[in-house]
């Protein structure tokens, strides 16, 4: 198949067997690649087979050898001239953090270079007894001893493996690995690639750690053939030009990165503060994108082939939080490590963010878990002696930085933080203080001030997530059209459309940020010229809906239903205390029934009729 390499690599770490299967054109037509194709593999090749053998889905241990981890690219990944094609998606049968499907996405070079190394996807089965890493060079695959790498941080691991492959003459080298946090199975450990890029969410790094898989290094020069090179050239020219002219993809994101959102989200009163006790941060200016650009930004670092280049390179030149080279921090990370913890020292936030990269932690869950611990401590739920000297009070920058490394090594109170906010708050008897949905910590938008994102958090398949249905785009930024953030009207349809479309983007796999300009019709054109499909705009939305429903269908086997499609009590019952959204709560029942109706779901689960309509074999 054009656009694809055409090969899926299966590696079993228990018996060390390696096999290759071709991309199935029928599956590709229904699920594209990336997230969609990986879900198909997880359901039909593994979950259904497990069930046939009498293994109940609920008994699958996310950190056991039965879990299956997939690194997945799609037809757009690695295609030069396509809009921001430098990403890949990670999926696993179960997340150790949420118990739902694990799902995470990352940029950098790893996605394109995996294709250049000769595979569209890598499926990891089983678990090794001893630490190993996987070396994939021009189609040749070896499982290698990683005893000397175990214990090393992300940057050292990346440098060592890059050097080894470079010495063999390897081209286009990229490393995806775990740090100490993944090795120690911190429940929200990330998979890191190209030093600072993270497949951050749902604990995929812990899964890699449980399999004793330290890293995957890829290298190669495979060329991706296109179905209609001439047609694609024309399309690329027009899409790239449109993105250049678009003020967001052409100017805003390149200039300020994602952190430019700090001020606007705070100004509208939807910037969660101190574990979501408030939605307005009086110190936001100190941690804003403008301040980051003015004081710490050195240059940009785009992902492979990206026309936008939102990635930041920063430096803190002096002081206790000195770090001479770091990347980020992104908007979500600034919020989680900063506003959510009440820390207004941007240098400490940069340092904490750097440590998350170095040790392999998801910044959103890390910051939110520290914030939950701070509230638990201040309200007397956590006894002082449990903290072993870490002064976890809101706004303490030194405690923030210390808490991060302690979490990765499970040192002292770090072993409690390593559980994530849901388990932490349960242990200390105040589960309502975990600001999470389905066990996944929510990101940087308070739905009391942006109602649609509340529906997204409640219904997102992976839990408290913004990027599977970024309604903020319309509700705050006015893209593609302005919608009132405080109104409930039209939000169910908005969220469903964003969720379905995003499922396609994550299966393409390219960057979600292109969708500030690139639409469903453009995706059809890209798939058609790159891979030779014959898709219409309607097909694209239908494929997205199919992917979203298959994921939901798998989740129902784990016991997820409408009871889990909700928000933390605080957002439903505690009015915002001050700021522009003072007095607001989320009335989820004004959106959820309509959403289920549009989805064709009963009790939060697709009906047999819906599955049939979408061509999903249950």
């Amino acid at each position, binding site marked *: 198949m054009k656009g694809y390499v055409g090969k899926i690599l299966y590696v079993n770490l228990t018996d060390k067997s390696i096999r290759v299967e071709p991309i199935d054109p029928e599956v590709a037509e229904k699920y594209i690649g990336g997230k969609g194709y990986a879900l198909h593999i997880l359901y039909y090749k593994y979950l259904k087979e497990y069930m046939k053998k009498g293994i109940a889905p609920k008994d699958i241990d996310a950190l056991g050898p039965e879990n299956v981890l997939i690194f997945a690219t799609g037809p757009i990944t690695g295609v030069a001239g396509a809009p921001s094609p430098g990403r890949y998606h990670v999926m696993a049968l179960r997340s150790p953090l949420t118990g739902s499907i694990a799902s995470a996405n990352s940029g950098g070079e790893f996605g394109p270079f995996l294709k250049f190394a000769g595979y569209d996807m890598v499926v990891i089965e089983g678990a090794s007894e001893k630490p190993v890493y996987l070396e994939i060079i021009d189609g040749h695959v070896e499982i290698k001893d990683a005893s000397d790498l175990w214990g090393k941080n992300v940057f050292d691991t990346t440098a060592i493996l890059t050097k080894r492959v470079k010495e063999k003459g390897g081209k286009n080298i990229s490393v995806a690995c775990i740090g100490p946090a993944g090795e120690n199975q911190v429940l929200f450990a990330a998979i890191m690639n190209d030093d600072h890029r993270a497949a951050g969410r749902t604990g995929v790094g812990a899964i890699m750690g449980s399999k004793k898989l330290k890293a995957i290094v890829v290298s190669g020069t495979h060329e991706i053939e296109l179905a209609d090179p001439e047609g694609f050239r024309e399309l690329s020219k027009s899409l790239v030009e449109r993105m250049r002219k678009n*003020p*967001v*993809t052409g*100017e*805003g*994101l390149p*200039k*300020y*990165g*994602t*952190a*430019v*959102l700090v*001020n*606007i989200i705070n*100004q*509208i*009163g939807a910037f969660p503060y101190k574990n979501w006790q408030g939605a307005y941060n009086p110190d936001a200016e100190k941690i804003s*994108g*403008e301040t980051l650009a003015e004081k710490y930004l050195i240059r940009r670092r785009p992902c492979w082939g990206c026309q936008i280049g*939102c990635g930041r390179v920063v430096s803190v030149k002096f002081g206790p939080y000195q770090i001479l080279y770091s990347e980020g921090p*992104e*908007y*979500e990370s600034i919020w989680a490590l900063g506003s959510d913890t009440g820390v207004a020292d941007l240098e400490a936030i940069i340092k904490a963010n750097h440590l998350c990269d170095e040790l392999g932690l998801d910044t959103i869950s890390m910051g939110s878990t520290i914030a939950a611990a701070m509230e638990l401590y201040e309200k007397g739920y956590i006894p002082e002696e449990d903290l072993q000297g870490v002064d976890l009070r809101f706004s303490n920058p030194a405690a923030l930085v210390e808490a991060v490394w302690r979490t990765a090594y499970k040192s002292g109170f770090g072993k409690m933080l390593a559980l994530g906010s849901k388990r932490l708050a349960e242990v200390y008897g105040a589960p309502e203080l975990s600001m999470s949905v389905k066990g996944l910590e929510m990101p940087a938008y308070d739905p009391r001030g942006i109602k649609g994102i509340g529906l997204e958090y409640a219904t997102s398949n992976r839990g408290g997530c*913004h*990027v599977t249905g*970024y309604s*903020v*785009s319309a509700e*705050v*930024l*006015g*893209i593609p059209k*302005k919608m*009132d*953030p*405080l*109104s409930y009207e039209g939000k169910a349809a908005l969220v469903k459309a964003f969720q379905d479309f995003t499922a396609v983007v994550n299966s393409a796999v390219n960057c*979600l*940020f292109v969708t*500030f300009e690139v639409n469903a019709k453009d995706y059809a054109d890209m798939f058609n010229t790159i891979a030779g499909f014959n898709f219409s705009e309607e097909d694209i939305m239908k494929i997205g809906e199919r992917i979203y429903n298959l994921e939901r269908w798998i989740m129902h086997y784990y016991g997820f239903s409408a009871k889990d499609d909700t928000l933390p009590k605080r957002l439903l019952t505690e009015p915002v205390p001050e*700021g*522009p*959204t003072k007095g607001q709560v989320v009335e989820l029942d004004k959106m959820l029934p309509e959403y289920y109706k549009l989805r064709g779901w009963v009790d939060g689960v697709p009906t047999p009729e819906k599955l049939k309509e979408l061509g999903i074999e249950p």
Partner: protein
Amino acid sequence: MPRVKIRLFATLRERYGRGEVEVDCDGTLRGAVEKAAEVLGEGFVGEVFEGDKPREDRIILVNGRHIQFLDKVELRDGDVIAIFPPLAGG
């Protein structure tokens, strides 16, 4: 005459070399922007208005609410007008 604050963000802040101006105005958005233009330069009116309407490609908030979704804009003492160029992230 109400005294209001006009706050600028991102590229607008860079373009006008400051993040904030405080002006006495006649209570209308137009009036406040015209007063600010006396400080920031004549071109500032065109930064916010296209003809007599606020520009579609600006995000304009009064006390944190998008002006499109306010019944009417009647500025009072201490009100904050926040003006953003098109921006995004995630």
